[in-house]
């Protein structure tokens, strides 16, 4: 089954919007009743990661290129694992200090997979965009990993910039393809 270009664009728009909502909700501070800023620990974020994983897995069914199927399958695995671990932690089922690194490592892993995607098909359509999006995800993952490992609290983590940039790119880029 081969999807027409507009359907591929639609899938990317939805996933980009979902990722943007995840990033902004996770990294922008909330205000408590006493006026103190707090970090969001919403259950919506892990659920959104799991829903995103299902969406990415759908590409494995609909894609007509083998390396697209492989890379999207691995993306789905990473998102699903990250969503499940975050869900377990936020529900209080499983809590370990290393779980702080789950989201940064998930972003880093997805960024590396973008690079793998480019390496497998360097002359493919959108290779430059894939490269840019991979760099943004890797930058976001490394920045947040450093912040977590150094136990350096900040009201708005720096990682929000490359990660939001990635989400906006995911929304914006397929527009050109769909035109």
């Amino acid at each position, binding site marked *: 089954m081969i999807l027409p270009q507009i359907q591929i664009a*639609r899938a990317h*728009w*939805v996933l*980009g*919007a979902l990722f*943007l*909502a995840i990033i*902004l*909700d996770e990294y*922008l*501070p*909330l*205000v*408590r*009743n006493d*006026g*103190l*800023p*707090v*970090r*969001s*620990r*919403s*259950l*919506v974020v892990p*659920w959104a990661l799991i829903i995103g994983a299902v969406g990415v897995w759908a590409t494995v069914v609909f894609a007509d290129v083998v390396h697209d199927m492989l890379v999207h399958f691995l993306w789905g695995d990473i998102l699903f694992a990250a969503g499940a671990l975050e869900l377990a932690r*936020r*529900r*209080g089922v499983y809590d370990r200090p290393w779980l702080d690194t789950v989201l940064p490592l998930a972003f880093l892993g997805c960024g590396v997979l973008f690079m793998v995607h480019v390496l497998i098909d360097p002359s493919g359509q959108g290779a430059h965009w894939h490269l840019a999006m991979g760099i943004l995800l890797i930058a976001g993952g490394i920045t947040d990993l450093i912040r977590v490992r150094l136990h350096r*609290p900040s*009201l*708005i983590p720096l990682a929000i910039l490359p990660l939001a940039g990635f989400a906006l790119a995911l*929304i*914006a880029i397929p*527009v050109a393809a769909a035109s």
Partner: protein
Amino acid sequence: MTESADSAMPQPPDERGPVRSGTSGVRATLVQSRVVVGLLLVVAGFVWAISRGLTFYGVSPTHLAYDLDQPPWLLLLVSGWLCYRSRRR
């Protein structure tokens, strides 16, 4: 779907010092960041809609999904979600 308790972020030590008014101003701006980003997304959605246009597919459930699955509407939805989540609790 329920939500877990929010975790308080550690406060910088200078919040308790005599320069509180200056830093609290910055902090007040930062804690409003959700509203600011939400408004920026609204503006981006409007600009996008004006520059590229919106397609109307229909009002049946499938067509409604197509109507909403366009970048300007998605940006507005994310903005609405962000502003909803910015309320004090």
